[in-house]
């Protein structure tokens, strides 16, 4: 069976019928995409669309839950080490400050961005996007937030930080008394909720809902005039 190819007269609903693979540029009719839970490109196997159940609700719940643990995870000690009666404490923030004071400002900036700032931005954007959509409100920030969520999604690296903690524990365990702080629990909870929020977020659905809200807002604005 051969599909009819899109022509210019069909452009007004182009996006409802066609998708282009972002990895190999294959043009695909979209009914193949919405029928399955996961739609893959037949040529390069890229995931074009993954349907997620109750996505907006779950993402909102997980991102708010994660935000509650964000401040304790960042400010309370994750590890503390006792050597000769002196205690060194690590919190996510003082690690950055210490690097800055030592003059490694570029490294301090990068660690701060990937472990402190980007996770907060990520959670804020997810909560903002899903909050807007769930409350049926449109603002010009909504498409910007979805766009920025896509742009910044690779830079939050909490799971790599967890691996860093594990390596630090192994390295330092012979030097003195290593105590795992309360914030380690907060950090793990923050990490799990952040990953759950990201996993349950369906960007495709977010864009769709955003466009519905935008059209409604435009119709309302015209009606008011």
């Amino acid at each position, binding site marked *: *069976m*051969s*599909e009819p190819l*899109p022509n210019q007269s069909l452009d007004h609903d*182009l*996006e409802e019928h066609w*998708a*282009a*693979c*972002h*990895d*190999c*540029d*294959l*043009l*695909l009719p979209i009914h193949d995409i919405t029928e399955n839970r996961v739609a893959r490109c*037949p*040529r*390069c*196997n*890229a995931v074009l669309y993954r349907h997620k159940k109750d996505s907006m609700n779950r993402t909102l719940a997980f991102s708010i839950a994660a935000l509650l643990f964000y401040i304790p995870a960042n400010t309370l000690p994750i*590890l*503390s*080490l006792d*050597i*000769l009666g*002196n205690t*060194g*404490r*690590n*919190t996510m923030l*003082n*690690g*950055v400050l*210490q*690097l800055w004071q*030592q003059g*490694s400002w*570029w*490294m301090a900036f*990068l*660690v701060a961005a*990937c*472990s402190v700032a980007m996770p907060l931005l990520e959670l804020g954007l997810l909560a903002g996007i899903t909050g807007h959509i769930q409350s049926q409100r449109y603002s010009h920030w909504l*498409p910007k937030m*979805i*766009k920025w969520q*896509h*742009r910044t999604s*690779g830079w939050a*690296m909490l799971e*790599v930080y967890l*691996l*860093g*903690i594990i*390596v*630090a524990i192994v*390295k*330092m365990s012979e030097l003195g008394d290593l105590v795992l702080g309360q914030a380690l629990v907060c950090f793990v909870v923050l990490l799990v909720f952040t990953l759950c929020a990201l996993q349950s977020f369906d960007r495709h659905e977010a*864009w769709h809902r955003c466009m519905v809200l935008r059209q409604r807002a435009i119709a309302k604005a015209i009606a008011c005039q």
Partner: protein
Amino acid sequence: MQFQRALTQGLTACDECHHVVRLTEVSPTQSQRCSRCFSVIHARKPKSISRTWAWVLTGLILLFPANMLPVMTVVYLGNGSPDTIMSGVIHLAEEGMYPIALLVFIASVFVPIVKLVGLITLLVVVQCKLPLSAKQCTYLYRMIEFIGRWSMLDLFMISILVTLVDLGAVASITAGAGATAFASVVVATIFAANTFDPRLIWDLRAPVYDH
């Protein structure tokens, strides 16, 4: 079923939101914008090959100071013992902590090299039109995108160690110049992967695909 390339139909997916838009002729002073997310539309990522080469070469050059200069120095009673990435791995292995030593080796040595070699391979495939499997090249690209972030492991570990061992004149740990270079390698390779456009690999192949 027969499929075509989107570009042959004058269509493309928006870089930012993957929305399908029709490419229109616009004047050189203004650019076309996506109707959904308002980003500038490009049929392919602009100057993808030269930008990726620039980031790859930056990463490649910085790989030398990153591996030769000390990433951290343990100062104990005034005596400093600097550690490079490799000597840190060797210390861990000497103390019998093989799994952790292997983990640090993969994240800090293996991953950056694999990323750079992989990206150079992809660039050469596109520029010299090498007949390698486009599907496997795309898998290589996805792997490069996925593994890049794990190189930050060493930097996070150093940021933890500098606060744990902070005993003033008795003992302290400071981050070295190697860590700054290594941080730049990680950023350069992540940018290199982001500026590369995998669609260029497929542009060399037949424009029609039968499934």
